[in-house]
C-alpha cells in the first residue's frame, strides 16, 4: 500500500507540472491577412507547449513540418493545401495535437508514400476532428506510439487499387487509438501493419476500393463497434494473433471477390456480437485456428461462412444464421471445428422435449454448396429444380457432405440481441 | 374448271390414290362412285387441299392449288362427317363461317337454313346435335356462300326422307344455275335424276369417267344403280 501511495504522489506532481505548463504557454494567431500569414512561420517562432490558432483561410505552404510539441488549432476549418504535389503536414515531434483543419490535395506518387498528415517516429500525438479531402494517404503513422486519431473525416477519390492509397495507415506503431473516424474513397479504409496493442473503435469505413480495414502482422489489437459498408472486398485480417472483434457491422460487401471478413492465418482470437449483413461471404476463413466465434448474427449473406479445410479448433457457438443462401461452405471432408448451439433458420428438425434445442443435429453444409465449391461452373444450376431435389435427398440420407460438420444442439429460436 | 393430273397419295403402305387424272367442267354434275375404301374421300380432300398429294398436281381455274388457298372460296364443301367445335352453337358456327369468308360480298344463300328449319335450334351447342342435324348444318354451310363448285361427300347419309328430298331439290336447283357439282354417295338411287357424269373409283384408281348416257349404253341397263352393280359384278369376277 505504501509503495502505491508513493507512486500516486509522484503522479500528482507530474500532473501539476503538465497542467501548469500550458498556462505559461503562448498562443500564436495565424490568419491570411494578419501579421502572421504562415503556419510554418508560426511553428518556427513558437516554443514547445505553445498553441497556434489558425484562422479560416487557404494556406498553400508546401509541406508544413511540426518539430516541437505544439497545439495546432484550426478555426472554421482553415485549408492546408498541398497543391497536388506535397505532403501537407509532417509531424516529427511527440505531444503534438492537430485539430480542426481541412487538409486537401496532397501529392500523388507511385513510389513515395505521400500523406495528408504524417506522423514520424513520435509518441502521444493527437489528430482530431480534421477533414481530409483528396489526399493520397490520409493519416499516416510510422514508428508511432500512444497516438490518438479521432473524429476525422477522410474522403478521397480512389478508383483503382493501383492509383490509390490508404485512409488511416499505421506502420510499426503501438498502442494507437483510432476512434470515430469516417473514411471513404481510399484503397483501404484503415491499414495496420506491425501495429500492436491498439484499439479501433466506432469508425465508419465505406466505399473504399479494396478493404474497409486491412490488418497485417498486427497482434493483440481490438476493434469494436466499427461499421464496414460496401467496400470493394470487405475487411481482411491476416497473419495476426490475439485479435478481438466486438460489435462490428459488416454490411453489403457484394462482389465477385468480396467478403464481409477475410480471416487468413489468424489464431487465438475472439469475435463477439458482430453483424454480417448481405455480404457475398460473411466470414471467409483460411488457416485460422483457435478462434472463438460467439453470438454473432449472419443475415442474408451468400455464404454465412466459408471454412477452408486448413482451419482447425475454431468454435462457432451461439450465433444466428438467417436468410443466408448457404450457411456454411467448405472445401474438404475433414472438419476440425466445432459448431454448437447456433440458430439456423433452415433447420427443419423438431424439439420433442421442449428444451429449446433441436433433437436432431443440423448439417449446415448443403450438398449443392459442396458441389459448387468443388466445381464452380455448377453455379449455373443454382436454384434449379434439380439442385433442390438433390439437396432435399441429401438432407434425408446424408452421404456426400462432411460427416462431422454438424451442430448437435441447434436452437429452435433465434437469439435475441 | 378443275383438272387433276396423275395424283398419287400413299398413307404409309396403303396407296389411297394411284395416278388419278380427271377433268371436271362447269355445269357438270358428277357422281363419284366406288366401293368403301376406294379413295373417294381422299380424292375430295386432295381437291380441297386438306390432303397434300405425294405426286401429281391439281389445278383449279388453271391455278395449281398447292400455291393457292383463295380458290377454296369458290368451293362449298359438305364433309362426310361434319366435325365442329363442340362448344359452339349453330349460330356461332354460322357466324364464324360468315365472318371468315366475308371477303366475298356475294349475297348469302340461306335457303337451306330455312328449309331445314335450323332457325329454331340456332342456340343449341354442336355437341348436343344428332348426326342428321349436323348433316343439315354441313349442307347449309356448303351452300351458304353461293359457290361455283359444290363438293358433297355422302350428303344424304343420316338424313330423313323429307330432308333428303329438300337437299336433292336444292342440288338440282344449283345444277341448273350451271355450277359444278361433285357428289359421292352409296345410295345410288338418290343420284339417278341429278347427275350427268359418273366417275368410278376402285383401289385408289380411277376406273372410268363417262357421261351417264354413255354408261347406260355400255352396260345396257336403264338405271344408274343397276349399271354400277353390273360393273362391280364384272370387276369382282
Amino acid at each position, binding site marked *: 500500500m505504501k509503495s502505491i501511495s508513493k507512486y500516486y504522489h509522484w503522479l500528482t506532481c507530474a500532473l501539476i507540472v503538465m497542467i501548469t505548463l500550458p498556462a505559461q504557454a503562448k498562443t500564436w494567431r495565424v490568419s491570411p491577412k494578419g501579421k502572421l500569414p504562415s503556419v510554418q512561420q508560426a511553428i518556427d517562432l513558437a516554443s514547445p507547449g505553445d498553441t497556434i490558432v489558425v484562422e479560416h483561410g487557404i494556406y498553400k505552404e508546401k509541406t508544413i513540418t511540426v518539430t516541437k510539441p505544439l497545439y495546432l488549432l484550426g478555426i472554421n476549418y482553415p485549408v492546408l493545401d498541398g497543391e497536388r504535389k506535397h505532403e501537407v503536414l509532417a509531424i516529427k515531434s511527440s505531444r503534438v495535437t492537430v485539430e480542426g483543419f481541412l487538409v486537401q490535395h496532397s501529392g500523388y506518387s507511385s513510389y513515395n508514400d505521400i500523406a495528408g498528415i504524417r506522423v514520424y517516429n513520435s509518441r502521444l500525438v493527437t489528430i482530431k476532428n480534421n477533414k481530409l479531402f483528396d489526399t493520397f494517404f490520409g493519416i499516416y503513422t510510422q514508428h508511432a506510439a500512444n497516438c490518438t486519431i479521432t473524429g476525422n473525416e477522410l474522403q478521397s477519390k480512389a478508383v483503382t487499387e493501383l492509383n490509390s492509397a490508404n485512409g488511416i495507415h499505421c506502420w510499426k506503431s503501438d498502442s494507437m487509438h483510432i476512434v470515430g473516424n469516417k473514411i471513404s474513397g481510399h484503397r483501404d479504409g484503415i491499414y495496420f501493419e506491425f501495429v500492436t496493442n491498439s484499439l479501433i473503435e466506432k469508425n465508419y469505413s465505406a466505399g473504399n476500393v479494396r478493404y474497409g480495414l486491412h490488418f497485417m502482422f498486427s497482434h493483440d489489437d481490438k476493434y469494436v463497434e466499427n461499421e464496414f459498408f460496401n467496400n470493394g472486398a470487405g475487411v481482411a485480417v491476416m497473419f495476426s494473433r490475439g485479435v478481438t472483434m466486438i460489435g462490428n457491422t459488416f454490411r453489403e460487401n457484394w462482389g465477385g471477390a468480396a467478403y464481409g471478413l477475410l480471416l487468413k492465418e489468424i489464431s487465438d482470437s475472439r469475435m463477439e456480437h458482430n453483424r454480417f449483413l448481405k455480404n457475398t461471404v460473411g466470414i471467409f476463413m483460411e488457416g485460422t485456428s483457435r478462434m472463438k466465434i460467439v453470438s454473432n448474427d449472419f443475415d442474408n449473406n451468400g455464404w454465412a461462412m466459408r471454412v477452408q479445410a486448413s482451419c482447425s479448433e475454431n468454435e462457432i457457438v451461439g450465433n444466428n444464421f438467417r436468410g443466408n443462401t448457404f450457411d456454411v461452405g467448405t472445401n474438404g471432408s475433414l472438419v476440425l471445428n466445432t459448431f454448437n448451439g447456433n440458430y439456423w433458420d433452415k433447420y427443419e428438425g423438431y424439439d420433442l422435449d421442449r428444451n429449446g434445442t433441436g433433437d436432431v443435429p443440423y448439417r449446415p453444409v448443403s450438398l449443392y454448396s459442396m458441389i459448387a465449391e468443388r466445381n464452380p461452373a455448377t453455379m*449455373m444450376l443454382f436454384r434449379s429444380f434439380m439442385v433442390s431435389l438433390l439437396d432435399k435427398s441429401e438432407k434425408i440420407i446424408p452421404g456426400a457432405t462432411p460427416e462431422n460438420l454438424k451442430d448437435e444442439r441447434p436452437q429452435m429460436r433465434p437469439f435475441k440481441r | 374448271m378443275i383438272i387433276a393430273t396423275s395424283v398419287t397419295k400413299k398413307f404409309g403402305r396403303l396407296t389411297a390414290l394411284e395416278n388419278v387424272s380427271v377433268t371436271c367442267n362447269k355445269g357438270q354434275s358428277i357422281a363419284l362412285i366406288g366401293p368403301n375404301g376406294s379413295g373417294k374421300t381422299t380424292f375430295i380432300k386432295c381437291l380441297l387441299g386438306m390432303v397434300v398429294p405425294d405426286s401429281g398436281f391439281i389445278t383449279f381455274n388453271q391455278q395449281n392449288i398447292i400455291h393457292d388457298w383463295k380458290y*377454296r372460296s369458290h368451293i362449298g364443301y359438305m364433309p362426310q362427317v361434319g366435325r365442329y367445335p363442340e362448344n359452339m352453337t349453330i349460330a356461332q358456327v354460322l357466324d364464324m363461317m360468315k365472318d371468315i369468308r366475308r371477303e366475298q360480298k356475294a349475297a348469302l344463300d340461306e335457303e337451306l337454313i330455312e328449309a331445314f328449319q335450323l332457325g329454331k335450334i340456332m342456340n343449341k351447342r354442336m355437341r348436343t346435335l344428332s348426326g342428321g342435324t349436323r348433316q343439315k348444318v354441313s349442307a347449309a354451310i356448303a351452300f351458304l356462300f353461293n359457290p361455283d363448285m359444290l363438293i358433297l361427300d355422302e350428303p344424304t347419309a343420316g338424313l330423313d326422307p323429307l330432308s333428303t328430298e329438300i337437299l336433292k331439290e336444292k342440288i338440282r336447283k344449283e345444277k341448273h344455275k350451271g355450277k359444278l357439282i361433285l357428289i359421292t354417295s352409296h345410295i345410288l338411287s338418290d343420284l339417278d335424276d341429278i347427275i350427268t357424269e359418273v366417275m368410278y373409283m376402285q383401289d385408289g384408281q380411277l376406273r372410268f369417267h363417262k357421261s351417264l348416257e354413255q354408261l347406260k349404253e355400255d352396260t345396257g341397263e336403264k338405271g344408274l344403280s343397276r349399271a354400277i352393280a353390273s360393273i362391280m359384278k364384272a370387276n369382282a369376277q
Partner: protein
Amino acid sequence: MKKIIKYVILDILRNRIMIGYTLFLLIIALSVFGLEGNPSKGVLSLLNVVLIIVPLISIIFSTIYVYNSAEFIELLVSQPIKRRSLWMSIFTGLASSLCTAFFIGCGIPLLIYVPDATGFTMLGMGLLITVIFTAIALLASMFTRDKAKGIGISILLWFYFTLIFDGIILFLLFQFMDYPLEKAMIAFSFMNPVDLGRILILLKLDISALMGATSALFRDFFGSGQGMIIALLIMALWIILPLWFSVRRFAQKDL
C-alpha cells in the same frame, strides 16, 4: 387472321381450366407475398412457380387444345384460309391467353409487391417462357395424331427442360471438371430456355455476386447489356424455331 385469333381466344376463355390456372397463380403469388414479410424471399418462392409450373401448364394446355380442336382445324382448312395463318392464329390465341393468365395471376402481384428490376425481369421471363412452351407444344403436337401420345411427348419435353437437361449438365460438369468449362456453360445455358430464364432472374436478385464469386465469366457475360441482349435473342429463337418447324409440318399435314 385476326378473326381466327378472336375465335381461338373466345374458345379458350370459355375453358374452365384457364380460369383455374389464373386463380391458382393468383392464390400462390398472393400467399407467397402475404406470408413472407420480405418480398425478395417471396420472389424466390415464386421463381419455382415460374420455372416449373408455368412451363408445365403452358405445354400441356396447348397440346391438349390443339388435339381437341382437330375438328375446328379441319373445318377451317377446307375454307379459304391460308394454313400458315390458321396455325399462327392458333399459336397467337393460345400464347396470348396463357400470357394473360400469367399476367393476371403472377404479373400483377409482382408489380404490386416488387415494382423494381427484379419484378419486371421475372414478369418478362414468365411471359417469355409461356410463349416458348406454347411454341414447343405446337411442335410436339405435330409429331403424332394420337392425343395420348402427344400429351406424353409434351410431358417428356417438360421433364427434359426442367430436370433431365440439368442432370445431364451436372454430369458433364463433373466428367470434364478438369477443363475450363465456363464458356461452355454459357453455351449450355442457351440450350434450355428454363435455365436461361432462371439465370437472368437470379442475376437481378443480387445473386450476381454469388455467381461471380465462383465463375466471373458467367456474371460478366450475363451482367453486361450485350450479354442480356444476346440472351433475349436466344429466348426469341426458342419461340421462333419450334414455331417455324411446326408451321412447316402443319402446311404439309394431311387432315
